[in-house]
């Protein structure tokens, strides 16, 4: 077999992981370019880059759907989970390697479908939320959205089945549950969420295509249907989905922070059993906070305001654990650590700005404005992407066996850090002042033109910073200096095998000693 076949047809978890990474970064590039086009369009009142509002709506649709479904979820539960989990638990591979390869190729099929958006005559323009009745009467191709979701969702479910089985049954001898890396816990939790909730999303989007193409009437009030069923099903998945993103990314940040502070994770059990379990427990009962302005019954809006606010408790635990891990640490500041520290600050902003949104009565003004857009970009697009980028930098030596350029890495970080704060802070500001989202043109809000121009400038800055990181990786993988097995001096299991890890990961499957712990630095 020649090398490229060994890559394409691979069933090895590390290579499958790398395939995930390549696919999801490509998706990020495409969706990022959509963002830049949108920003360009918004630099002036009236048509700027395109005459046709529909074109803008297609960009926005592709941006949202691809960023979430094609970039973050696959990067976190595809790439990181695949690459790290077997190594962290001391397994030779996942439980079902062929199923794993199936997941990654289904993911690529999903990406192909999403990219076809730009080549078909009737691209979907239904936003990533695809609310009926618009999504059932538009001339856009709703079916492609449905199938993108179904295929990516199916890939995700298979991944979940695979990894839950792997973690449950394939841990190295002596690897007890309380010795698992935080990242492993986070990912397990994320997969549990995926298994429970993705099917609901799958059903929701299938029903829109049924309604649109097969003549059913789930969402058609004229024939006894109800438009709000869709929104309930959609958010019943899509709220937990934000924790499917949040949990693994905060897990990555934990690994980075513990390694670069060379410190024990603060209050491990609180983080796992309070934080992670708490988030899983609450995530299924807060979806109505996306339907505060849809006229749902008052009791359920008030009830879910309380549950939504209470989510700050388990999420707060994960933040305390993270900050506490710095206490009495021995911190150094290589690029991954900069990204990780960036995440702490940016996530604080993003998470705390979710609090006003959680309060029903405040949301009556804030919902569907740029304030919401600012909130979720801070928490997801910025904190999440920073965690992903930091994680790639962190495991880069292990994956490629080479080092990246530290200077370029730091430069990229600071540029994006500056850019994101310009863009997304301004968004929250104009949102509070009344700027609605999903606007191709804001002719009746001329007072925001200046702000929009600043944001476009900031977006260009973000693009430059991210592009620097990607270039850094490509150059580093090709001709960086050779990396040591454990360049950061980490205790975690994945750094004890050779770099890059061979097929089968270990010469002899490691046995875990009683006193070992992935974060046991002080005992050394």
């Amino acid at each position, binding site marked *: 077999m020649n090398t490229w076949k060994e890559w394409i047809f691979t069933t090895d978890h590390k290579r499958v992981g790398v395939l995930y990474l390549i696919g999801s970064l490509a998706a990020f590039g495409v969706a990022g370019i959509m963002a830049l086009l949108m920003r360009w369009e918004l630099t002036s009142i009236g048509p700027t880059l395109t005459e046709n509002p*529909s074109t803008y709506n297609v960009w926005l649709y592709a941006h949202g759907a691809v960023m979430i479904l094609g970039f973050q979820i696959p990067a976190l539960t595809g790439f990181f989970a695949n690459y790290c989990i077997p190594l962290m638990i001391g397994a030779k591979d996942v439980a079902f390697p062929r199923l794993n390869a199936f997941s990654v190729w289904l993911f690529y099929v999903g990406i192909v479908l999403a990219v076809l958006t730009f080549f078909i005559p009737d691209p979907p*323009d239904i936003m990533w*939320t695809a*609310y009926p*009745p*618009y999504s059932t*009467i*538009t001339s856009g191709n709703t079916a492609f959205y449905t199938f993108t979701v179904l295929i990516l969702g199916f890939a995700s479910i298979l991944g979940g089945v695979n990894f839950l089985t792997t973690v449950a049954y394939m841990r190295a001898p002596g690897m007890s549950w309380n010795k698992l890396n935080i990242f492993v816990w986070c990912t397990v939790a994320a997969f549990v969420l995926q298994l429970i909730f993705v099917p609901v999303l799958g059903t929701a989007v299938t029903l829109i295509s049924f309604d649109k193409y097969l003549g059913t009437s789930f969402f058609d*009030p004229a024939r006894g249907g*109800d*438009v*709000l069923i869709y929104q309930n099903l959609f958010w019943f998945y899509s709220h937990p989905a934000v924790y499917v993103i949040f949990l693994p990314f905060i897990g990555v940040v934990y690994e980075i922070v513990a390694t670069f*502070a*060379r*410190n*024990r994770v*603060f*209050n491990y*059990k*609180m983080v796992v059993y309070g934080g992670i379990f708490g988030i899983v427990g609450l995530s299924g009962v807060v979806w109505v906070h996306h339907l505060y*302005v*849809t*006229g749902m019954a008052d009791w359920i809006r*008030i009830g879910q305001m*309380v549950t939504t*606010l*209470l989510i*700050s*408790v388990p999420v707060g635990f994960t933040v305390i654990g993270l*900050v506490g891990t*710095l*206490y*009495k*640490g*021995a*911190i*150094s500041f290589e690029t991954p650590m900069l990204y990780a*520290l960036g995440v702490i600050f940016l996530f*604080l902003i993003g998470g*705390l700005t979710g*609090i*006003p949104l959680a*309060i*029903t*009565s*405040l949301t*009556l*003004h804030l919902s*569907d*404005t740029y304030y919401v857009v600012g909130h979720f970009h801070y928490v997801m697009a910025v904190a999440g992407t920073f965690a992903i980028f930091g994680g790639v930098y962190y495991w880069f030596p292990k994956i490629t066996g080479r080092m990246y350029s530290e200077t370029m890495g730091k430069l990229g970080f600071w540029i994006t850090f500056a850019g994101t704060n310009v863009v997304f802070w301004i968004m929250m500001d104009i949102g509070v*002042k*009344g700027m*609605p989202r*999903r606007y191709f043109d*804001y*002719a*009746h*809000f001329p007072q925001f033109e200046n702000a929009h121009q600043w944001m476009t400038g900031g977006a260009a800055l973000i693009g430059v910073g991210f592009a620097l990181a990607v270039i850094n990786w490509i150059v580093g993988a090709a001709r960086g200096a050779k990396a040591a097995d454990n360049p950061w001096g980490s205790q975690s299991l994945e750094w004890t095998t050779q770099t890059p890890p061979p097929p089968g990961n270990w010469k002899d499957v490691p046995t875990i000693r009683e006193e070992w712990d992935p974060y046991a*630095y*002080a005992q050394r």
Partner: protein
Amino acid sequence: MRKHLLAACAAAAATASRAAEAIRDPAAGWDRLWHEVIIDISILGVAFALITAWFVLRYRRRNPNEVGRAEKLTAAAAVGWTVIPMFVFMADDFFLAANGWQLWNAYRQPPAERIEIKLESGMYSWDYTYPNGVKAQNVLKVPAGKPVLLRMTSRDTIHSHFIPDFRVKEDSMPGRVTFMWFYPQKPGEHIVTCAEYCGIMHSYMVGKVVVVPEAEFAAWYAQEEKKLADGGRQTKKAGA
């Protein structure tokens, strides 16, 4: 039921001006609560950020072989570090929830002496119908000093009637009736804009609320009503 009785009694007892005072204007309440919440979350955010920054500065690695020195928490400390933050956070959550709920009541319990207008939204216009049958498109004229309640539905996709100045929006959709109310106190103009993605021209779905002095409104209203009646007669004639 009991609530209605109470409201009726209260209305009967109060003079007109006193009743107006009793109306809790959600927009003002919104601004108050917003500032309260912003202060609350800023304190939390700044506290966490400062602690983080302090740790980062204080515990820098000084030589390459240094490792962290944090001890394992004792069982009591671990529980304490879980339970205390939990109660602090929960206390704050319930405080915010209670305040939010109070304001919510103001939003969801419209005052009895109000003017009630029907709204049907469509791609892409706001179509209002006054109690006397007068219709208006995109421009909603209302008297100053009287609460306005909209009963809303939609003939096609979902829209959201958003009046930033009054800090309120609510979706209108086919097959369901929703409501919102607001309290215009001074003459002036306020933008109405669509806040739910409803189709290609979503961003152009704009209208305005024009608040005029009560007397001016009454004159306009009577005149429109008369026009409507005349118009009706005329079409009848034309039909015959």
